[in-house]
């Protein structure tokens, strides 16, 4: 508890697990290559670098597009739409359920039940209702993420001290003013935290949707390449997805601290 690493050691400590994983990989890859020069399971890093170069900078033989960027653009668009809509639903519905007892009594248990349905289990229904195009992929993300956001936000609203709300009302605030001026600013940081935590599930649903039916996208490529075990494509894609998710998370964290510095005063650095 009281041994605090210095600046340099902290960086070394942070890098250590990555270095170990990379080393285990390199050793394992070299061993498999020694036994079978065509091994596809653990391609050496040099080979993956070549593949990445081809995917990122050379047009594909068949589609004449640069695969990595078209995949990334398509996936990020789906993810952005899905998360955006889910966040909006989370904000509006969560606020209403948390603040207005009438709405809460009507919808809180519905949302609780909805949030328990595993979205992957209702996929055939989603297909039939929303088709097999972009819409069903976005809907899957929304369906997977929105109930969690709604519930989390409703809980956050419910946790606001009652005195605050009573005081605002006795000063003449209408319900609308209460929602916009008192409640909303206080729950915004919590909403962003919840979205950050939803990034993982959102990516999971995105990749699943793309695995099931798609002609472009990060998940599409991974599952297509899986058909002939092209790990030299799959591993860089996994790393790329991880990086994208990490950057999104980082950006949200920074945005929250920038927009609502008061919410992070207590944070231990």
């Amino acid at each position, binding site marked *: 508890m009281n041994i605090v690493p210095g600046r340099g050691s902290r960086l070394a400590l942070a890098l250590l697990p990555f270095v170990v994983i990379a080393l285990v990989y390199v050793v394992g890859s070299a061993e498999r290559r020694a036994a079978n020069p065509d091994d596809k399971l653990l391609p050496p890093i040099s080979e993956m670098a070549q593949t990445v170069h081809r995917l990122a900078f050379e047009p594909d033989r068949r589609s004449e597009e640069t695969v990595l960027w078209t995949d990334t653009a398509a996936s990020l668009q789906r993810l952005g739409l899905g998360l955006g809509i889910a966040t909006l639903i989370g904000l509006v519905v969560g606020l209403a359920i948390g603040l207005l007892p009438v709405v809460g009594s009507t919808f809180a248990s519905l949302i609780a039940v909805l949030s328990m349905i595993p979205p992957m289990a209702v996929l*055939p229904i989603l297909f039939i209702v929303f088709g097999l195009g972009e819409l069903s992929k976005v809907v899957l993300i929304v369906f997977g993420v929105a109930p969690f956001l709604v519930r989390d936000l409703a809980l956050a609203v419910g946790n606001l001290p009652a005195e605050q709300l009573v005081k605002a009302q006795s000063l003449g605030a209408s319900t609308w003013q209460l929602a916009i001026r008192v409640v909303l600013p206080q729950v915004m940081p919590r909403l962003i935290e919840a979205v950050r935590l939803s990034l993982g599930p959102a990516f999971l649903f995105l990749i699943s949707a793309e695995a099931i039916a*798609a*002609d472009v996208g990060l998940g599409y490529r991974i599952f297509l390449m899986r058909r002939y075990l092209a790990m030299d494509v799959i591993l860089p894609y996994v790393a790329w997805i991880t990086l994208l998710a990490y950057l999104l998370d980082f950006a949200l964290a920074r945005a929250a601290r920038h927009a609502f510095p008061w919410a992070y005063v207590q944070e231990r650095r």
Partner: protein
Amino acid sequence: MKFFARTLTGLLTAAVIAAGFNSAAGAAPKKEFNIAWTIYVGWMPWAYAAQAGIVKKWADKYGITINVTQINDYVESINQYTAGKFDGVTVTNMDALTIPAAGGVDTTALILGDFSNGNDGIVLKKGKTLADIKGRKVNLVELSVSHYLLARGLAAVKLKEKDIKIVNTSDADIVAAFKASDVTAVVAWNPQLLEIKGNPDATLVYDSSKIPGEIQDLLVVNTETLKDNPSLGKALVGIWYETIGLMQDPGDKGKAAREAMAKLSGTDLAGFEAQLKTTRMFYTPKETVGFLSSPDLAKTMDLVRTFCFEHALLGEKVKSKDAIGIAMPSGEVLGSKQNVKLRFDTTFLKLAAEGKL
């Protein structure tokens, strides 16, 4: 920093030791073998053989143990085999070429159980002939035998892959996909194909009976393992022909076997027999040897490897379809003689045909 240096050395040692374990397995004669199978009408005999004790009977005869394991996901089962977790797997000729063989795992096709004779098909909504597919989005498992069938079909009606748009769709969801209003053309295999054909607006416009013998369902085993352990080959061939002999039996015994296989594949006797009708089974080793010894096999494999090469299934680095050698039972090699990775071998089938097992 001393602390870090020590920890680092410790972790590295652990890592090297851990990696070393990976390659500990040698080529010493083994006693226990693992075979993976997935649900498909032509592979259900393996499930039944394991359940009915036929596997154990033959394994005991040769003093070995054979574990027959069902894998839920077809591609995963082949990947596991390629990674070395299984000694044998049920697979089509095309996937045997593109996954293990292209991955450098020398693979022998020990048993050819059947070829698809209508088990794979192209279904359209609002369309009477295959030519109506032009300009449509086609849902199928990309780079699979479905894709191959589509390519063969398109060639037959003088269309190109550019004339359609392929949407990769999981085989698990293709039945539901066909019900979506924006899906108007699919390529699928059984049992999904039966389900899709059952839709009132569905028309089957092309199927694998138009390309007989090109989509083969095999049991492949690792060539090295087979060479070191011929008793594995004998036992597997023995199990196979005893089981499908039962399956073919017109009497009660055969019906019981087919019923059990139907149940294991999640359908009923009628559904299973409907699928058997579109499957050209080879019930005797003699018949199989005859099919494999015909010069048509080389022609078929040439079509298949050309498709695989054109779709970069042999790997992006591969510059010619000859890069991977495919050995015919006669010893003739299609492609590189230095890099034979897929072998059609009738040695064990001939033993069975001569009753020498």
